[in-house]
Structures are given as C-alpha cells and as structure tokens.
C-alpha cells in the first residue's frame, strides 16, 4: 500500500550529501562557527555538486530534481551542521524559488543560471524589525516614479543578504492600499550594490553562526519597474506559497539536527565511562537515546508526508505546519538531551552537540513560530 523507501536516485543523492557533509563540512565547520565566518569554499563546493540547483529545471542550470531532493540534502547537511544547511535552504527556497516560480522568462534567464549553481546567492526580505509572522504589517513601501520603483523601509533577519556573492534580495513592499483598506504587497528584486540599499553588519546570533544574517535598509532605492516579481499586488499570495514549501524544508533541516544528535550520542556513549562502565550501558542513557531516535524518526515521517502531498500537487498547508512543528520540537528536545548526555563536554563548543543546542532554538521561530504553526493547523481544521 504505502512505500516509504526512497527511490534509487534520491537514495544516491542522500548518500552523496551524507559523504560530503562528513568529509568536507564536519572537519572544518566548527572553526568557521567560532569565528562567525561564512564558509565560502564549502558553499562553492555545494554549488559545484549541484545542490543549489536541485529543484530547478536544467534550462536554468538546475539539476532537474524536485523539492524533496532538496529536503534530503538539507537533512543530511543539518545532521552535521545547520549553518551550511540554512545557507542552502535560503539560497534555494527563498533566493531563487520566487524568481523561478513567479518571474518572467527574462528575469529567469538573467538571474537563475548563477543562483542555481551557487556562484551567487539570492535572499528574500519579508520580515521587518517590527513584524515577523504578521506579514501583513509590512511597512516598507515602493512607489512608481516613471519607469522606476522607489523603495523605502527596512528588513530584519535576512539570510544570505550580505555575503560577497549575494547578487540580489527580493523584498516585499507596500505598493498601494486596496479599496478595502488592506495593503497591496508586491515583491521586487533589488540587486546588491544598488544605491541607497544598505546592508548592515552581521547580527551577533545565538546559533547558525557560520551563516550570513543581516538587517537591510532602503533609502530611496531605485530599481527598474521590470524588477517586480509576477504581477503587482501578488506579493502576499506569493510568499504564502513560498513559506508553505519552506516549512517542509525547515522541517527536513530540523530532522537532520535531531538525527545528528542521535549520531553524536551513539558515538559518545560507547566511549565515555562513568562509575566503571560505558555510559551507554545505563538505562537512563539508553532511554534518552531511544526517545531521541523516536522523535527524529516520527518527525521525518511527518516531513516525508508533507513533501509527498506537495509533489502530488495537493494542498499541503496543514501537513507542512505539522511537520515544521513536530520536527522543530524534535530538534530542540534532542539537542537538549544530547547536551545533557555529553555533560560538561556538551557545554563546550569543541563538541558538535553544543553547536546543535545553539542552532536548535531558531527552528522553533524561523519560517513561522511554533505558535503560528498551531494557528495554521487549527485554521485548517476550521477552528476559530
């Protein structure tokens, strides 16, 4: 009836990324993290192996794969490190996807070939300093002046927006007020380096320290009228669909972190001794690890289910929210337990579980907080 095995190609991709994460990311990422440095060389390697092109057609330099392939890659990367995983996630699902899905043929030809190869990164500016989940509270404005948009305002917590290879940021801005008093939101591409577009220095973050996150400011930024993505006034509908997909991607990333905690603990409890025995021989530890595996496994099933509906073209909003909620919980719980199992070493940055602990919290916040996911699930059920 149902078959949850991966097909040959997806399994081969998963293994390839697993190997890449083990051999290329794991040995070096801790140092980048400590230095809060963006790992350009790793990102370039990810680009060369086609990870940034996974869900895009070959016409635009993509791999001709699907969104699930991206999810598998994110899971395997996040098993080792979340900073590189979120760089990929944001680059693909927020940077390139809006252009791929809603852009004109000309926009796609112009921007996608270098975004899908990871030579350049795109970012998506939705959240503002005064509003995250309340996307309707957008204050950034864009006014048409002749054949240019003039943009004013600011955006907060924008991933990939200030790297040396950032090519553009797609921002949502209020372009009009509808007769019903609601704001009309439009997505507009602002190329990096446009006059009046300021990228602040990197935030000091609790986690994801080897990824690039910045605040953006726009003071009379002028971009050609043709830089709007899709139709004027469609920005709100666009980012809602982009966010639904993104939730499945963040769920996959969360599952990776949750599984990475299990991986690290399995290694550690077979080596570490306390009271004369390997700590893995104690039931207190065994039960913790069993629970961690249960959380990672069930969260994986949740995101597989959401991805399956998405790929079949069915509505998947509820499943995406469930997957995001359950997997970010799993990540947070597993990171806390893994750190506990490692004891004092868990609190040291030299062990990956400490990094996992710091990286887990944002998963309950970004791409819609856990509260927002519950809101969405309840709404889908017709409550309230």
């Amino acid at each position, binding site marked *: 009836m149902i078959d949850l095995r991966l097909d040959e190609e997806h399994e081969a991709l998963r293994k390839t990324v697993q190997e890449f994460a*083990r051999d290329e990311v794991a040995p070096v990422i801790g140092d980048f993290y400590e230095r809060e440095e963006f790992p350009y060389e790793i990102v370039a390697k990810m680009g060369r192996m086609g990870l940034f092109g996974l869900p895009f057609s070959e016409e635009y330099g993509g791999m001709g794969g699907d969104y699930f392939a991206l999810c598998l890659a994110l899971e395997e990367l996040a098993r080792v490190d979340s900073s590189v995983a979120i760089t990929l996630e944001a680059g693909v699902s927020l940077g390139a996807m809006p252009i791929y899905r809603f852009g004109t043929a000309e926009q796609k030809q112009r921007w996608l070939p270098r975004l899908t190869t990871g030579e350049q990164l795109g970012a998506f500016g939705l959240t503002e300093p005064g509003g995250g989940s309340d996307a309707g509270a957008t204050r950034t404005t864009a006014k048409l002046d002749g054949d240019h948009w003039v943009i004013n305002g600011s955006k907060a917590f924008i991933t990939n927006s200030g790297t040396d290879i950032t090519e553009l940021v797609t921002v949502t801005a209020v372009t009009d007020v509808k007769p019903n008093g609601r704001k009309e939101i439009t997505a507009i591409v602002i190329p990096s380096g446009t006059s009046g577009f300021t990228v602040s220095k990197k935030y000091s973050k609790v986690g994801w320290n080897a990824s690039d996150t910045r605040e953006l400011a726009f003071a009379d930024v002028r971009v050609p009228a043709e830089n709007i993505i899709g139709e004027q006034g469609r920005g709100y509908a666009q980012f809602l669909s982009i966010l639904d997909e993104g939730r499945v991607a963040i769920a996959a990333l969360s599952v990776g972190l949750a599984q990475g905690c299990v991986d690290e603990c399995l290694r550690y409890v077979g080596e570490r001794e306390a009271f004369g025995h390997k700590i893995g021989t104690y039931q207190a530890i065994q039960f913790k690890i069993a629970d961690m595996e249960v959380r990672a496994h069930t969260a994986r099933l949740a995101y597989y289910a959401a991805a399956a509906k998405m790929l079949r073209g069915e509505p998947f909003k509820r499943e995406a929210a469930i997957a995001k909620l359950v997997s970010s919980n799993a990540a947070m719980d597993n990171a806390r337990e893994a750190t506990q199992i490692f004891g004092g070493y868990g609190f040291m940055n030299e062990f990956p579980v400490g990094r996992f602990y710091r990286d887990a919290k944002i998963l309950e916040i970004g791409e819609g907080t856990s509260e927002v996911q519950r809101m969405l699930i309840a709404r889908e059920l017709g409550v309230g």
Partner: protein
Amino acid sequence: MPNIVVLVKQVPDTYSERKLAESDHTLDRDSADAVLDEINERAVEEALLLKEAQGGEVTVVSVGPDRATDAIRKALSMGADKAVHVSDEALRGSDVLQTAKVLAAAVGKVEGYDLVIAGNEASDGQAGAVPAILAELLGVPQLTHARKVELDGTTLKVERESEEGITRLEASLPAVVSVGEKINEPRYPSFKGIMAAKKKPVETLTVADLGIDAGEVGLGNAWTSVLEAAPKPPRTAGQRVTDEGDGGSKVAEYLVAQKLI
C-alpha cells in the same frame, strides 16, 4: 580523442570496521558498508578531466560481485559514459594475478582503448600490483604512482611519485596509468549525474564470456593464499612521562629506545 578505460573496485568503507571471513580469510563483505574505493574516484576524476579537455569516452571496468553495481553507478554518476562489469561466483577469492588476467580480458572488450587509468592501490587488499600486472598482460607501457598526468595526442607524460622522489615518465598510447592520492580532488556526483547514470549502459559479463576457464580463477586456484589473519591489536594507552625536571631527557631517551631519533 582518447578512449579511456577506468578500473574501479568496490571495497569496504574505511569508516567502518573491516573484517576477513574466519573460514577462508576472504573479505567479509557483510561486515562493512561497500563503497567505491576513494583512489578509484580519483582515477575516474582524472579520466573525466581528460575527457572534458580533449573529448573521447570513459568506460568503467570492474570485477566484483553483483552488488559492485553500486560502485559502478557512482562512477557513472560522476560522469563516465558506460561500464563493463565482470561478475561471476567463480571469481570469489581471486588473487592479484587472476584479477589482472580477468581485467585484461575485460579491457580487451573495450574496442580501441587508448588509456587505462587505475588507482595505485586498493584500500582493502593493498597489494598495489594489479595495474603493473595488467600492463604486462596487455603488453603496453605501465606508468604507475602518477601524481600528474598529461596527454598530448598519443604521447602520455606522467610524474611518478615514490619515496625516492619524482620521476618523469613518457610513453606512447596505449598505456596503463595508476594514480596516487595527490592526483586530484574527485568531484561529488550531482543529482543530474545520478539520474543520467541510470540510463547509461552496463554490460555484465561472466568469466566464460571473456573466454576464461572458471578453473583458472577463484580462491581454490589462486597463486597466493592467506594462511592466517588476526585483527590489529587495539591501540595501547602509550607511555606517560611526568615532568619532574627531567621530562625532556626522559622523552629523548624514549625516542632513542624506539630508534626514532
């Protein structure tokens, strides 16, 4: 446009615990994950670099059990064009001479080959002899332990690295080259490559298909046999030197005793 053959071998993953079977000291293939040997990835990469620069075709040749298909697929997903897989129960336990003989026959099936590229030594058997034996059997020059390969028309130039230093070799095609660790950094297969690999032709042959008598190969007919095998003893804790003012000389004494200085 060179017609290149790359030899690949599926080996137990060096990241897992590798064992020999207790009964006959052949490789216990169930004890570890099976992967394409890393040195073979470098051989494939070198072939692909030559192909990308000069055109031509890359054929993967492998001798191994049915499940070696996975290693072959990986080479194909990196970008090789087609494969020949010699799989036969009779081959189980074959030594380097027998393997080279089978490989020579399989390479002979690749019409008009110009260059055979191999890894210099597999991570499991570590005999490091197959490329040289193969070259002898094929009657072509052997340029082993290459850290750099250049192909100019039908002239092959290789930098051979050994403990004594670097030797520059030159030969005319056809030839056999074996590459070392320093030759290149192999690429990771892309998803496009993975999907394309599924459609690439893999010819599966038995020893009979190669005109070899089953009695010439396999453990029972090998020229060498493993008499005894024991796992490496676990690493000992080492010797701790406590510095009580004479730490330096104690360390020096230890190193002298070990004939390290």
